[in-house]
């Protein structure tokens, strides 16, 4: 089945089995290996991408549902070789260790900051509850996200 969609700002077409998982198509067909598979069951968030601007788990999406839609992956967060503020904050605060969860964390944090730029720490934890991390213990991740939010407020 032929599917047309926008991927990281470019119009793409692909011929695939309709029920293939978006995650596999991104990683194998488009070689965008930033999105990770942690659980394959919607629990861990390592596969988080944006579809029409909304953060979703790409392991639970049949690629045929992407017809005509706009998909963004973690590879689109940096621009001109410059990491985004959220990505830089994750590095600065030690919000990443082994790195498996990090692409999903960076995506969900970016979506959360867009949707609720003034979220409290407790609310931010709630918004990030679908992203599991086995290394950092979460504190440093939330520190990083809150600091990115504060920096955005300072710089307007």
């Amino acid at each position, binding site marked *: *089945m032929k599917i047309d969609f926008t991927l990281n700002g470019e119009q793409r077409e692909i011929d695939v089995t*309709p*029920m293939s998982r978006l995650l596999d198509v991104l990683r194998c067909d488009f070689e965008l290996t930033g999105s990770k598979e942690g659980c394959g069951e*919607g*629990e861990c968030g390592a596969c988080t991408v944006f579809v029409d601007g909304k*953060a979703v788990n790409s392991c639970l999406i049949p690629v045929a549902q992407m017809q005509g839609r706009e998909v963004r992956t973690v590879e689109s967060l940096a621009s001109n070789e410059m990491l985004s503020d959220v990505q830089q904050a994750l590095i600065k605060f030690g919000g990443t260790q082994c790195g498996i969860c990090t692409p999903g964390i960076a995506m969900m944090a970016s979506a959360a900051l867009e949707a609720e730029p003034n979220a409290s720490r407790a609310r931010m934890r709630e918004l990030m*509850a*679908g992203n599991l991390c086995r290394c950092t213990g979460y504190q440093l991740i939330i520190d990083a996200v809150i600091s990115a939010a504060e920096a955005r407020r300072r710089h307007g």
Partner: protein
Amino acid sequence: MADFLQPQTLHAALEARAAHPDYLPIAGCTDVMVGFSHQAQPTGFIDLFGLAEIQGICADDGHISIGAATTYGDILKDPLVYESFPVLSEAIREIGAVQIQERGTLGGNLGTCSPVGDTLPVLLALDAQVHVASSKRGSRLVPINDFIVGYRKNALAEDELIVEIKMPLAPEGTQQYWRKVGTRRAQSISKLMMCVVGRLNGKDVEHIRIALGAVAAAPMRVEKTEAVLAGQALHEETILAAQDTLASEITPIDDVRSSAVYRKEVACNLLGRFLNDLGGA
């Protein structure tokens, strides 16, 4: 290769459903895709996600209707819902995390009809009706109590689709209560869910609906317990009698998440708390 249909209208979707009763309707796929590759594959799929005609929320003649393919994320943003049915918003807020809420739909929760489907006790307590349709026989409104048939089983015929869920607006003074007892706040499979909707006239119980999830093969209303309360003055003895009846009316199981005795005790305590609040208000 499995066939994949993307009807652009409800009419086309219903025609596809009638022509291919063996095809699986899909919406947000948050149930369908879990363990998908390990299961027997249907020969085809009918995609309903984003079908505009069965998305969105509207108010008409004393009801609020939610399209079957409306995502939890969109339901949470709608003031009509959280102002009229705070219990529905509360229940949905605890379903999965953001990524699941952006995809999961109310129609999907009814389609799966799991004993731990979080919206089902709420819809039972709110006297919701499920608007279903087929291309040959047209539409029918099924009371939620009849729609839920058993363990992961609903009353949908093989040529029908869920179109919308309709809930009557409650009169002034109606109180709503929702509790999900689980292990973690977000993303937990529940040990027990309870939704109660009630209203007093003076001291007397004028309206009462009590629904539970995770205490039987399917979410259920406890009608015997409701009958103990209906029309009675609300005082301590009535509350105790209702709790006694509730303990014998539900038959929870022991499983890895919790024991039957614990579930019964929690259910009775929650009911007591709601009734005391209702009486005190």
